[in-house]
Every structure is written in structure tokens, then in C-alpha cells.
């Protein structure tokens, strides 16, 4: 048990080439096993030292320095590095990086004050047959199939910066459902209906007019819907 306590001390003692002291010294004088262990360690380290000494303390060949001198005479000294050799490329790289960051930021969408989730890029409107447009608070899309109305934004359009949005959001309508959509838009505009919440689980979807930015959309179909007006 006591030998195990001294084991690491014996290894440290051998590696440090110091003299044993205190309790370790007393133990080594009493315990032959530990004394033998220390001797074996010291012998191993002596062998190692001899290896290193043999490798490091060799005579330098007589031809070595003259040969190096000859080569040095034929060598030219490279000029010291001037400040502009690294500063110019560094400035050029920084400028290129700044331009790249600027361009990347310009194309990224910015949502000021609203989360992106409020503005779904693609939303399907499900069918809800012929609900009467009685109240401005409830507006339904009559007779529309799924995928017939798609609100879409171009990838470069900024949501809240009208100055920069050169591409208005658009509403794509299936040709056969123009009338219903026009009626829907007209009712929504008259009611100034601006619900902002999307309930994806409901069969009747409330469109966020603000999100779709329907106001700036030129409602061209109105000009071609004389049949709609005549029907009314």
C-alpha cells in the first residue's frame, strides 16, 4: 500500500534527476522493490540522455560552413517588406467586402415592426360557396377553388418601404373567377377592411389587405367587367 503512494514520486524523481528526500528517501532505503523501480527508471532515462547526446553532440563536417558561405555569396538579399506591399491589397479587399455586404443588405427583405410571419408569401384561399356579402366584417371568396387566388410578392420587394418597392404585390386570379374576385376586392375596399390575422385552420380565410397591399394594385379587371355591372 505504501509503495503505491510513492510510485508517482519515484517517477517524478527519476525524470527530474534530483536526489530523494524526506519520506521517499526513508522508504527507498527500506523497500527493495521501490529502489529497484527507481534504478530501472534512472537507467532508462540515462539511455535516453545518451541517445540525445550522441545525436546532438556530433562534430560539424569541415565542409559544411565553407559550402554555406559559397551559397550565401551567390544569394541576393531580398528587400524588406514595404508598407504598401500589404496595405494596398488589404484596402482593396476591405472595399470589395464592404460593397458585397452593401449589395447583400440591399437585396435582403426588411420587415419594420412586423414579423415575417404576418406576411405569408404564398397563401391559398379555400372555397366557401356563395356566402352573402352582408356585413363588411365577414367577407368570403365565393366559388373559388384552391390555388385560384394566390398572393405573391417578388423576391426583391421590401415589405415596408414603398419607396424602394418597384414591384407591387400582385394577385393572380384564374380566368374563370375574375368576377368573384373583383367583387371581393371592391367590397373589401369599400369596407376598408383590414384584418391582419390569418387563421390557417379555418375554411374562410381573411385576407390581410395591408399585407397584400391591394390598394396600390391597379384594379384593371374593373374596366373589363361590364358584364358584372350589367348583371347587378
Amino acid at each position: 500500500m505504501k509503495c503505491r503512494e510513492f510510485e508517482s514520486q519515484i517517477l517524478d524523481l527519476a525524470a527530474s534527476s534530483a536526489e530523494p528526500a524526506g519520506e521517499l528517501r526513508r522508504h527507498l532505503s527500506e523497500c527493495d522493490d521501490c529502489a529497484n523501480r527507481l534504478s530501472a527508471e534512472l537507467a532508462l532515462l540515462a539511455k535516453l540522455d545518451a541517445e540525445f547526446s550522441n545525436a546532438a553532440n556530433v562534430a560539424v563536417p569541415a565542409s559544411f560552413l565553407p559550402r554555406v558561405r559559397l551559397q550565401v555569396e551567390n544569394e541576393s538579399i531580398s528587400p524588406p517588406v514595404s508598407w504598401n506591399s500589404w496595405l494596398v491589397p488589404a484596402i482593396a479587399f476591405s472595399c470589395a467586402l464592404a460593397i458585397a455586404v452593401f449589395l447583400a443588405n440591399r437585396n435582403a427583405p426588411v420587415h419594420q415592426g412586423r414579423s415575417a410571419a404576418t406576411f405569408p408569401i404564398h397563401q391559398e384561399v379555400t372555397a366557401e360557396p356563395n356566402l352573402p356579402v352582408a356585413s363588411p366584417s365577414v367577407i368570403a371568396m365565393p366559388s373559388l377553388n384552391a390555388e385560384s387566388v394566390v398572393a405573391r410578392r417578388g423576391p426583391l420587394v421590401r415589405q415596408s418601404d414603398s419607396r424602394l418597392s418597384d414591384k407591387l404585390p400582385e394577385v393572380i386570379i384564374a380566368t374563370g373567377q375574375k368576377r368573384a374576385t373583383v367583387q371581393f376586392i371592391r367590397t373589401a375596399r369599400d369596407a376598408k377592411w383590414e384584418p391582419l390575422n390569418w387563421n390557417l385552420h379555418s375554411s374562410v380565410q381573411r385576407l390581410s389587405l395591408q399585407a397584400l397591399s391591394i390598394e396600390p394594385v391597379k384594379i384593371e379587371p374593373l374596366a373589363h367587367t361590364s358584364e358584372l355591372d350589367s348583371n347587378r
Partner: protein
Amino acid sequence: MQEIAIRSLSDSLPPMEKTNAADSEVALRAEFEALLSECGPLAYRVARSVLRNEADAEDVAQEALLRAFRRFERLRDKAKFRSWLVRIAFRLSLDRWRSRKRRESRESAWMNETLHWHQVAPDAEFQARLERALSELPDKFRLVLSLCAMEGHTAEEVAAILQVPPGTVKSRLFFARKKLAEKLR
């Protein structure tokens, strides 16, 4: 007064500049020559202690000295030349040693098919184990082992070469010896 001004202007003319540059190169070469005589053998010994092969050590030490000469003008503190050269020589030696090891391991792959382990001489086996143990040792410990093994190098002198405190040299030496003994036991 005017004459003096004119003369001082003519001093800075291009031919004079060329002479000054040539003079400075001559001075630089003379300075390097003095350091070469002093530190050249040290570079060789560092390479020899790592590579354990005379021809390789000569090659590497020569390359280290030539590299040092090419960049000598950039070395601001010439008092650090010895430390700088030792590092260059050690780094180049390690590179050469590692590439040699890779080559040898490829060659030994087919040698092992015909040579059994018990046929290898005990000394060669110890050498192989030592090489393996050394390869696992961190470079900074290995360099201290090599420098301390050189005759006449005390811990203080090695510390001066490596630009570290003497206590650091002693602790690195202790750690290196202990690690090697553990692996070779």
C-alpha cells in the same frame, strides 16, 4: 551658406544612393558572415539531433541558413538571430523528419511481410519505439530536449536561445523526459 545647401542637395542624388545601398549590403553580408561562424554549427546540431542522419542534417541546416540570410535584412533585432535560426532549423528538420517517416512507413509495410518482430535487433527496436515516442511529443518539448542534450548548454543558455524563462525550460525538460520514459517503459 548657399554653397553648403547645394552640396547637401547633391548628396541625395541617385548615384550616391546606389553607393549607399551597396555599402549597406556589404555591411549586412559582413554581419551575417560573423553570425554564420557563430551560429552555423548550432543549426547543424539542431538538425542532426532531430534527423539523426548526417547528410539530411547538412541539407536542412544549409537550407535554414540560406533562408535566414534571405530574410536577414527584415530581422530588426539582430541579437535574436540565434533564437530565430534555431527555430528555422528545427522547423525544417521536423518537416524533413516527418516526410521521411511517411516514406519509411510505406516501405516498412511490405518489409513486415517478410521480417518478423523477433528478428529485429533489440537496439533497433528501442530506436523505433523512441522515434514513435518522440513523434507524439509536442514540438516545444522536443526542441528543449535537443538543445539541452548539446554539450555546454545549461537551462539558462537554452532559455536565452528560446527567449523563454529558465523555469519554463526546466519544466519542459522534466515533462519531456517523463513522457518519454512512460512510453518506453
